[in-house]
């Protein structure tokens, strides 16, 4: 377990919990990071684009890796512009590509995401694309230079959990990059389940923001994610689908 690192674009992390920052009080960010044990925190570049004395950037401790996202981008071109602005703002080289042209469900546009990933990877960004879990798209993203793949579990903010479970499992099985489950994780148990499946990390925001006690919920997620990871590493035991298993083996008749 001690050497179990999450590696993204050559950077190593011990924590497998990526925090969102945009939906709760700025004053709670530090506590959230502490209780979550998080080493990566996302922030919307458009939100950091402020003259407000309370800039969200100033509330994020320096030892935490910033993961700026391109929310507000409606196509690849806009995402690329926002990513470049993030770099200018001093947010580092990581970028989470988010491209939506649907204001109701905020579902990502996979086609535009592939385009933006390729451009930004070529510019030296560590690109973490948010996507709808589709194997062919995931392969295209790998070829485009993505550092991870971030499939959605269910629509952003819905707290509905692993609605796309089967398809995320396919990505975990077939893609060599870390699969980070993003969006829709509403409860620690759902985060744990995704980790048991072999997800590399979990990203959550609304689940914390809407919790009664944010630091406590951050702590709960931390432990759930760690538990799921340990279960995955230990190799899950068998799960019986129905009834008990036959005590007499079906192949007992075979003779050598």
């Amino acid at each position, binding site marked *: 377990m001690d050497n179990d690192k999450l590696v993204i674009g050559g950077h190593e992390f011990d924590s497998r919990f990526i925090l969102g920052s*945009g*939906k*709760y*009080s*700025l004053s709670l960010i530090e506590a959230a990071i502490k209780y979550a044990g998080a080493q990566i925190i996302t922030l*919307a*570049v*458009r*939100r950091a*684009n*402020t*003259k*407000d*004395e309370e800039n969200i950037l100033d509330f994020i401790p320096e030892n935490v890796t910033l993961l700026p996202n391109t929310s*507000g*981008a*409606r196509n690849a071109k*806009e995402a690329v*512009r*926002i990513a470049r*602005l993030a770099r200018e703002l001093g947010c580092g080289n990581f970028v989470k590509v988010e491209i*939506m*042209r*649907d*204001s*109701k*469900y*905020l579902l990502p546009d996979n086609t535009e995401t592939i385009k933006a990933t390729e451009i930004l990877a070529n510019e030296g960004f560590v690109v973490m694309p948010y996507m709808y879990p589709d194997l062919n798209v995931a392969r295209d993203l790998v070829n485009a230079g993505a550092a991870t793949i971030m499939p959605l579990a269910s629509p952003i*903010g*819905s*707290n509905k959990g692993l609605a796309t479970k089967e398809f995320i499992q396919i990505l975990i099985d077939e893609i060599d990059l870390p699969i980070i489950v993003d969006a829709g994780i509403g409860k620690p148990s759902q985060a744990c389940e995704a980790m048991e499946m072999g997800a590399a990390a979990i990203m959550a*925001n*609304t689940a914390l*923001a*809407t919790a009664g006690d944010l630091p406590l919920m951050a702590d709960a997620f931390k432990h759930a994610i760690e538990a799921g990871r340990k279960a995955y590493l230990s190799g899950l035991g068998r799960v019986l689908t129905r009834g008990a298993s036959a005590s007499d083996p079906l192949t007992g008749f075979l003779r050598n």
Partner: protein
Amino acid sequence: MENQFLIDSDKLSPAALEKKHRLENDRSYRTNHMEYMEGMEIINSDVCENVMTQVKSFDYGKYSAKDVKAALEHESCTIEDFKALLSPAAEPFLEQIAQKARLETGKHFGNTVYLFTPLYIANYCENYCVYCGFNCYNKINRMKLNYEQIEHEMKVIAESGMEEILILTGESRSMSSVEYIGEACKLARKYFRMVGLEIYPVNTDEYRYLHECGADYVTVFQETYDTDKYETLHLAGHKRVWPYRFDAQERALMGGMRGVAFSALLGLSDFRKDALATGLHAYFLQRKYPHAEISLSCPRLRPIINNDKISPLDVHETQLCQIICAYRIFMPFAGITVSSRESAQFRNGIVKIAATKVSAGVSTGIGDHETKYSGKQKNSLQGDEQFEIDDSRSLNKMYSDISGEGLQPVLNDYLYV
């Protein structure tokens, strides 16, 4: 004509008074409000028909407690559920409705509340809308800021910390041309992160021009979706043309604007029907333009200069709250703005349930921000207000009040790309 609105100014000439009275009393003297005027673009759209078919058949008396309970239990809100939530049968369930609305708001917006302020740059108006302080027969101080004055106002507002501005004019194309408004947008881009417009409806190419000047959001109040009632309230001027106004948001999106806002002025007509129409107007347009950012406003009628009797009639705070919660449950992703027309107490309460944007440091007058912000008297002329506001809190006060409620005030969450 029935109403609380009609006031004769003693400054009007006999000829003007005669015309005013004829407009008020003689239906045949007024133009056809459903007919486009010259220069008004006609777009091919089915949105209006989709909305009005639903609104016309909306019989809110037929909904029962059972329908309301079903609406509260459903995971996603259908049009029928929305109607039930707007019906009188929903009133006894207001607390439960508010609880559900709060959950939906949290999912999409977390604990954030956005802040903005309006800037009126001119109050000349060519319309006779009987309830509005800017109407052409109301004797008020008229004013149009020049570019230097606009920039001064913007500096004063920006110094207060505000980052989002909504530029407004009276509806006069001749006094406040599209080019004039465009220049104001360019100036605003220097001082603010986000620039919205609430001006007279224009054509697609003009919205495109204004977008290029830096504006990205367009708000148009339909006032009332009841066309017959609309006709009796908007007696003269281009605003009289109801369908051209209805299609304004669609033209704005066609012109490249990121977002559009919708509203009925509650209290003008049957508020339940107007609320349904507002919600459906936004709903059908978002279905057609899925990328569009959508927001809803919910203003009630307010007193104006020379007529302090104007009130929102049967739309009390309870009904307003019901409408806002119904909007939220029907469209969980939409922004909901509550303006300074409402009291501080109401706004403090509603941001915890469903509203996601409030104004602060508000003046609906022209060129008076310095006076209002610093108390410093100016020698130069100031233009009168469109209506009386209720909540006069400054940005600082609003910011600390919202923080005090455990919510996070946000001055900007936007990039012009």
